[in-house]
């Protein structure tokens, strides 16, 4: 029996703003719980929402890139339900007038229709531990966009590809940090199996998938589970399920038979705001490059291979660094390789941002095969990642090179040019040796260690003396 799969996605994506959607509460993912909270976020009586303009701008950017029709009337509604993650007892969202409608995204030659993109506020985070639930209001009120597709995705792979593409879009356009593992992007999946390709089967929702691999596993498991049920002529009940990452199975959460009535109403505290055409255009004009645009630049202008470009594009921080470095050097391929290998492996084992200065990296790369071999340069860059100053490391290397190769020549030159001083020294005048050391420093432009020069001078003079005595004998 042929069964047809229909998948629809609801993607929640936290926006990259400094403050919350409707309050001046700062956003900081590393802050201790309940320390980034304004009276509004606790829903103290009398607090009022104010709209975060930056969030509106980022949401517009998302609507634009997803090809949505933008509603110029910015309006917000209340969605009511009682739950401890929702202090106000309602969430401010855009139920009746989403910012964007009727968009689409091409995935593997299939047009995935996007029903709506709307703005809303995130809920508080509930932390369940040892049978006890704690509430962290830091997350409460972080701006979100929700992207809702039509149930038109027909394979698990396409669903995952769609999700990957969304992650790339929002990350490269700096709409969101786009990290699923940090909960910045979350996905709910609706799926149904039916015997007729044109009608949908019974809708089953899997909530809160937090990585693409989990999404893939959950979908495969759920499709198999439902097929099994249908084979055995069991009916599938509309329901919500959750995915257990350890067991790699989905579990029943609640039935969808009884629909929750959210009692939507327009939020009377927020006036309708008409966004002017000019303002919207201005906002959309000023956006970072999409990853496709960056790919074009890397391959066409910089001559990177397809593989190199794709490899870099896996990690936005590296791409940003790549373009910063290549402001100062034309060694594109060298930079790309170094970023993809050394920096990537470093960033995997280290928290926090990459602090190395792009111009320093460029300097080092430019010196490769000029004053320093590749292997040495790589070592220095590695130390650079650990916070060592690259310029100083390179200078040290140069000094070391001087002492081992050219020092002897230098010493001989100084001794040959100053026979009188040698003579004086041999007579026991120590000051003459100091003068010779000075001459070495002068000739080497200070690139040698004076102590080392002193020793070498002594050694050489002793040697000269001995051979002179030998001759006399």
């Amino acid at each position, binding site marked *: 029996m042929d069964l047809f799969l229909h998948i629809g996605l609801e993607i929640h994506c936290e926006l990259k703003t400094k403050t919350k959607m409707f309050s001046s509460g700062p956003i900081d993912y590393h802050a201790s719980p309940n320390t980034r909270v304004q*009276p509004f976020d606790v829903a103290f009586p009398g607090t009022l929402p104010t709209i975060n303009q930056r969030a509106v701008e980022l949401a517009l950017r998302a609507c634009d890139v997803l090809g949505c029709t933008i509603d110029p009337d910015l309006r917000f509604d209340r969605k009511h339900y009682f739950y401890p993650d929702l202090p106000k007892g309602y969430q401010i969202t855009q139920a009746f007038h989403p910012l964007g409608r009727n968009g689409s995204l091409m995935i593997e030659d299939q047009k995935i229709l996007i029903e709506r993109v709307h703005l809303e506020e995130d809920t508080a985070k509930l932390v369940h531990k040892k049978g006890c639930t704690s509430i962290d209001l830091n997350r409460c009120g972080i701006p979100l966009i929700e992207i809702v597709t039509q149930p038109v995705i027909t394979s698990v792979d396409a669903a995952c590809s769609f999700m990957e593409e969304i992650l790339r879009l929002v990350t490269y356009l700096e709409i969101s940090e786009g990290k699923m593992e940090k909960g910045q992007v979350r996905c709910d999946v609706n799926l149904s199996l039916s015997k007729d390709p044109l009608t949908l089967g019974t809708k089953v929702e899997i909530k809160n998938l937090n990585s693409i691999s989990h999404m893939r596993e959950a979908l495969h498991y759920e499709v198999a589970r439902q097929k099994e049920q249908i084979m055995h002529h069991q009916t599938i009940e509309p329901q919500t399920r959750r995915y257990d990452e350890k067991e790699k199975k989905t579990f029943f959460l609640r039935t969808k038979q009884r629909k929750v009535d959210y*009692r939507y109403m327009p939020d*009377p*505290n927020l006036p309708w705001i008409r966004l002017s055409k000019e303002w919207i255009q201005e906002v959309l004009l000023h956006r970072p490059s999409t990853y496709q645009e960056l790919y074009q630049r890397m391959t066409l202008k910089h001559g990177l291979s397809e593989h190199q470009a794709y490899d870099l594009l896996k990690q936005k921080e590296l791409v940003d660094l790549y373009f910063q470095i290549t402001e100062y050097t034309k060694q594109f391929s060298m930079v790309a390789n170094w970023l993809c290998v050394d920096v990537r492996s470093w960033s995997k084992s280290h928290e926090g941002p990459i602090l190395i200065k792009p111009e320093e990296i460029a300097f080092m790369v430019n010196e490769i095969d000029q004053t320093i071999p590749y292997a040495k340069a790589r070592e220095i860059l590695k130390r650079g990642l650990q916070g060592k100053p690259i310029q100083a490391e390179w200078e040290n290397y140069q000094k070391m090179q001087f002492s081992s190769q050219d020092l002897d020549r230098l010493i001989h030159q100084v001794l040959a040019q100053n026979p009188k001083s040698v003579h004086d020294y041999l007579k026991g005048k120590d000051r003459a040796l100091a003068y010779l050391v000075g001459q070495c420093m002068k000739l080497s432009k200070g690139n040698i260690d004076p102590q080392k020069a002193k020793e070498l001078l002594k050694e050489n003079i002793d040697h000269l003396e001995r051979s002179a005595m030998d001759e006399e004998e």
Partner: protein
Amino acid sequence: MRLNDSIDSQQLARKWKAVDEKIQAVAFWCDETEKNDSSFYVAVKDNISVSGLPMQAGSHILKGYRPVYDASVIGRLRKQGGHVFCKSKMDELGMGDTGLNTGTTPIFNPYDLSRIVGGSSGGSAALVASGCCPLALGTDTGDSIRQPASYTGTVGVKPTYGRISRYGILPYANSMDTVGYFTTCIEDAAYALEIFEGKDSNDMTTLIKPGGSYHRSLDPSLAGKKIGIFHSVMKTINDPVLQKIFDDLIHYLERKGAQLVDVDIDSKWLNLVDPVYKTIANAEACSNHACLDGLRYGSQPIADTVEQAVKQARTTGFSSLVKKRFIYGAYSLYEENQKDLFLKAQKIRRQIVQEYLMMLEDLDVLLALSTPDIAPQIVDLDGSRMQIESLSNSHLKLDNLAGTPSLSLPLGWKQGCPFGLCIRSNRFQEQKMFDIAKAIENYTGLAGLTVEV
């Protein structure tokens, strides 16, 4: 202006305590150690947040709650030398028009302790009426300032929606909630608007409109002023005493050269004011008070589960009157009812407002009695804690539906109790309203009216 009168704060405190024993108008005293004789003291309705002072808004569910921030109006008040002296009692969450539904004892009318004071800003009205303070803050969602003002012989002002910030005001119905105040004379009322008005970045519904120097600009001239008489409302007044006093006023205004015109709105719209108001107010209230779940502040009951805790807090925390309104509110927002109730009410509201604004357009001000009679006896309300709705009192809600300014000013007496005249003008035309009010105050001679309790 009485706001500038110098006072002795110690003496004032003694007076307030003595008065309050009789009228029961104070919810919480402010234990401010630093008292300054040069400033003026203000009673603040207990739904306005004052950092550190308790705020219960007449509801048990907020027991123990102390705001951590000041409402914007409190900041503005302090900037002008005002001090918060106490939080005044009110009907629970602003729901009620009697001053009886306060969660504790009723508030008594200072003119006659057997009568109601009105509500929901009853405490503030009573404190101004009894001479405790020259200014008290209130809020007006349906008639909550103007109706108690009428019953207590005070000037009660509800400005244009958007004039004064609502930030920090425990809401009732956001689209109609208006911060206003009580004074004993029009000069103070005009000055007070200068104190409180202005755009606030914390309240997106405040509007940038050039403020006025209302007090200095007061112009009580009547010649050539076009004054409307709200025909349908006055038709319902059947008390001969009130009717005569109103008629005398009209003759006076005409003698002074004002142009008096009978104006009206189609009764089909007027009859809908009350149901439309209730539908919208209950829906918004039900939503606004969803945050009162006893989890983060207020009465925080201990229970096994979150659901039980919320249920317990809300079951014991609200009076039956409030719960009833929540149920109406929720019902009108259910998906299957929205179209027939909430959305329909919104639609009709727009039509009523259109009719009303059209009526106001040609007028300087519109007049009607604020209430159909003096304050009712407490015993006559028969435990319902609500008054009977009729056009003669529901007409005040028109200004909440439309956002127009409106005030009540003491006009006359019956059985030793005062009643008020309602003066309203078009949006942002408070100056016109104050000007005529000043002229009428000159006629009544009731500026600075207070009563010894």
